[in-house]
């Protein structure tokens, strides 16, 4: 519950950034550079005199969009593969899953960096790369659930009534594998936030002057001695969003199917 409220609050804050942020996140004010946290700038200001709190709130928007799109790409491609593999079984299943396994042998961060490196450093390429990297994860997970659902009596009943395979998959299998998909979306979301922050930190994602938690931590790195408070905002933002998404995922897992999801 707390996690759900926290996630909703974060989403609201990020989507209402233009109202919620006290200052313009890219407005440079060199007279106010590297100010410590105060009543007018709760989290201080950075080297260009930009308000850190406003940048953190706007940065949340980047993380939100990245998380949503990455989960959407991974789901849109991974779930159909999983449904086909799991429902068809046999040779089709074997081939599709071996290919997915092969993709899983890449160290994920390295593959993402290599894809972004080949496409060019850009936040959209980061989303694309992270989405691609997460496809096999979705496919593996949902295929497992599909295999279980395939053996259910209602599937046999539908088949006996003469339903076609595509219809059975869409009308009977898909609704029953929604639970693991939803849980996986929250997991992917939080992993994507960390990955985007890492890539932007390396200079491969969001480009200046756009606010991004990872990017801003890279700038904070240069002023560790003079302005250590620059670390506070982005670190807290990443940690609270990852924690609340993870807790939300755990909660959903317990709530939706306590039997098959207990570890």
């Amino acid at each position, binding site marked *: 519950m707390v996690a759900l409220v926290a996630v909703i609050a974060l989403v609201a804050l990020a989507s209402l950034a233009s109202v919620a942020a006290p200052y313009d996140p890219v407005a440079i004010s060199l007279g106010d550079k590297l100010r410590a946290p105060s009543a007018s700038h709760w989290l201080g200001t950075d080297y260009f005199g930009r308000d850190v709190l406003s940048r953190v709130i706007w940065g949340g928007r980047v993380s939100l969009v990245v998380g949503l799109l990455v989960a959407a790409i991974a789901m849109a491609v991974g779930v159909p593969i999983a449904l086909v593999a799991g429902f068809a079984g046999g040779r089709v299943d074997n081939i599709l899953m*071996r*290919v997915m*396994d*092969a*993709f899983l*042998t*890449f*160290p*994920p*961060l*390295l*593959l993402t*960096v*290599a*894809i*972004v*490196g*080949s*496409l*060019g*450093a850009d936040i959209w390429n980061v989303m694309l790369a992270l989405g691609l990297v997460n496809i096999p994860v979705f496919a593996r997970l949902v295929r497992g659930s599909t295999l279980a659902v395939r053996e259910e009596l209602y599937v046999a009943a539908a088949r006996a009534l003469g339903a076609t395979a595509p219809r059975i998959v869409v009308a009977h299998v898909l609704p029953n594998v929604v639970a693991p998909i939803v849980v996986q979306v929250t997991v992917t979301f939080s992993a994507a936030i*960390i990955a985007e*922050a*890492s890539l932007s*930190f*390396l*200079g*491969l994602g969001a480009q200046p002057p756009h606010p991004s938690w*990872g990017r801003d*931590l890279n700038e*904070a*790195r240069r002023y*560790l*001695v003079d302005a*250590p408070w620059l*670390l506070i905002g*982005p*670190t807290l933002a*990443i*940690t609270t969003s*990852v*924690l609340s998404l*993870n807790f939300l995922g755990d909660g959903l897992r317990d709530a939706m199917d306590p039997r098959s999801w207990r*570890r």
Partner: protein
Amino acid sequence: MSAYLLRRLAQIPLVLLVVTLTVFALVHVTPGDPIQIMLGMETSPEAVEALRKRYHLDRPLPEQYARWVAAATRGDLGSSIRQHQPVTAMIAERFPVSLRLAAGAMLFALAIALPAGMIAAVRRNTWLDYLLTGVSVGGLAIPNFTWALLLIYVFAVTLEWFPITGAGTAPPGSSVWAMLAPFVLPAVALGIQQTAILARMLRASMLEILTQEYIRTAHAKGLASHAVVLRHALKNALIPLVTIAAIQFGYLVGITITIEFIFAIPGMGSALLDAVVNRDVPVIQGFTLFMAVFFILANLVADAVYTLLDPRITYRS
């Protein structure tokens, strides 16, 4: 050697096919002409054509792929465009550095996770257990590059205990401490998340073992409880832990990039980042391929270790 391991070996050709095709495809999604990037702006069409011939870029794609794979099996991954150095030479130079960093991180993780996981299991549902669990959940939510910045601020900037840079660059003949000290903060930053994972793993498997019959028997025959925990429970809990640690070690080698960037460590990650910034395609390709193969082997070793450690384990399909 079980049939399971043999089956895993039999799958490797397919895995390698997918891996090589993916890495090969990376070049062809790169916007812009690699030859143009290589030569810079001022080039005559003749020079471009000559280089295109030399790198066989004028051949059809399947032939290019075949040539590239054939060369890779001979240990030839091409040459860096920027460094004017064979990619394999770069790997030979830099991979040991990343390996050392990952080993340091794993050492730190095991040193903390072993006692922490054991204590949490033995003292389950006490404040100590909750504290350790809370710390590991929190530890996992902070990315390792953020840990690195926090550690730098506390232990390098404020306390001045450890240097920030210099890992892997100490001149030969320096004291052991001068060589090790720069590795401390990077290794800890890289290892914190693994510490949390391993501690939670160990706690879970210890809890399962502590409810077994033979543990009750050991207690019943009057064995001191520390002996029961160490000799009977821990020994069995270590089997899955070692396997996870082996897999996690391979994973660690693949995520050193942010840490190498922060601490200026001349390993695989920082070289890959340079290659990405400079569009040095042969390096990106070669490094990705090498790491994927390393990952496959590491997982295979982890599986083999698992079957060797526990004679009961037989994989069946």
